[in-house]
């Protein structure tokens, strides 16, 4: 049974019940899991266009994403978050979708750059007008391309979002 906000009753602080079942959610455990999850976000090494260079710069010596526990992984099977860094074309969109499908749950999407957010300056016959047309985007980072600091901010926002999640663990996903 998937816990949604409608069928959860809070009986006392940090202890919640799901309506119509004997299950108990202990939100302290939620916090622990969210803390662990948000502090080891592993993004996928997935560059599409210009923004990928800024993403590389964010991972390289000056900006150094590693200090946030963020390590780039080359395989979607080991990744938690996919950063759509660049223009998605109609030819590339099925590939992006397939890579996203290969990632294990829970997975998050950051749309980096104007092209991934809205299509940017490329309003043409071949460009998907925003990655949110086929992926559930969590965080939008505007800019053409965004500075590495902006990407950091986007990742911090994603961390905040993860910290607010509840019940997204165990067999419930």
């Amino acid at each position, binding site marked *: 049974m998937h816990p949604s906000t409608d069928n959860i009753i809070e009986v006392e602080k940090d202890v919640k019940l799901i309506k119509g079942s004997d299950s108990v959610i202990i939100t302290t455990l939620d916090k622990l899991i969210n803390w662990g999850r948000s502090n080891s976000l592993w993004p996928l090494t997935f560059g599409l*266009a*210009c923004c990928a260079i800024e993403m590389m710069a964010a991972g390289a*010596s000056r900006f150094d994403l590693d200090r946030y526990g963020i390590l780039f992984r080359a395989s979607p099977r080991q990744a938690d978050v996919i950063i759509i860094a660049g223009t998605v*074309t109609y030819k*590339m969109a099925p590939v992006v979708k*397939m*890579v996203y499908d*290969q990632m294990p749950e829970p997975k998050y999407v950051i749309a980096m750059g104007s092209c991934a957010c809205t299509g940017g300056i490329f309003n043409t016959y071949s460009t998907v007008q925003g990655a949110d047309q086929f992926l559930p985007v969590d965080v939008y980072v505007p800019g053409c*391309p965004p500075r590495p600091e902006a990407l950091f901010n986007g990742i911090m926002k994603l961390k905040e979002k993860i910290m607010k999640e509840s019940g997204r663990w165990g067999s419930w996903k």
Partner: protein
Amino acid sequence: MGQLEIEKLSETRFVLQMGPHHPATHGVLKLYCEFEGEKVVKIVPEVGYLHRGVEKLGENKTYAQAITLTDRLDYISSMSNNIGYCLAVERLLGIEPPLRAKFIRTMVAELTRLSSHLLWLATHALDIGAMTVFLYAFREREQILDFFEKICGARLTVTYPRIGGVRVDVTDEVLDEIYKFMDVMLQRIDEYEGLLTENRIWIARTRDVGVISADEALSLGITGPALRGSGVYYDIRKLMPYDAYPYVEFEVPLGVQGDTYDRYLCRIREMRQSCLIVKQCIEKMPQGEVLAESAPEQDMPHQTKRKITADSSFWSGYIRFTAETMEMFPKGEIYSAIEAPKGELGFYIVSDGSVKPYRMRVRAPSFIHISAIPKLCEGHLLADVIAIIGTLDIVMGEADR
């Protein structure tokens, strides 16, 4: 597609699809590789995963507006792209930029060459397995990007050069900083060479890999350091000088064997020459204007001068917009090329006299270099394919446009 798909043809022969999502393909390049054991039999590159319709967009924007599109072609060296485009339009319209603008352009073009080669070195070495070079090269690249920020306010997609000059002047403080940094840069290049040039693993991975003779390279249309690695003296900066290149002295490094190692040495030596060119530019830079008086405005004033005429012959109420300034620019066509960090970057522009180009075609070096991959990979191992993709310095934004 994104997945590794292996198709078996016989007991030892199989087809492996590499890319478009692969960390070593430098973007979204896809290669169909046919192997006999671990030896490459056939490679077919597939491009078009980043086709954004830049050339078509260029036809719908005025000459001045299209500069922003050229940034996103070869996004690692956007200054060179801007300069290439501006130079083509200048030659078409007959505008001569002031001397100071020429020197500034040459300086930023060489800084771009440095940053582009640093990124090439970083990724090429990372693909082959040298992680330290990646971190070292990005350290210096960030400093060059800082200079771009001080010059024009942007890091990557700069849009700094304009038709007939550059956007803003560079202050003396920034010039001093760049001049001082070039001495540091020369030492840093020695550092990279210390890590790689005599490294036994590096030599084993790059010597005699991807050998191409001068004739073959010429017939394939390879340009830039990839061609000079085969020993062909072809550098547009020397043969058809533009901007301030006639005023500076530099050498064109050439390779001998035409393998991956020679191309590496060529690029490293080119970086040294670039440092020297930047220093000379700062020394010889005159004072004065940075934008020609005849340069067109950034918002070319045709939008306000549009006439609305009702065309009653076909549909009544159909409104046609006609530009009053239809005969604003000379008619004709031009091909103009510059020496971009990757090779010969050409812009072919057809003008019908209006404020927009009738056709804008980009001769991108990366696209032509991709066509050389099958030739270079013949008879090599799978691991060498990675080294060959790295040595050609491919950027898919410019190949697919």
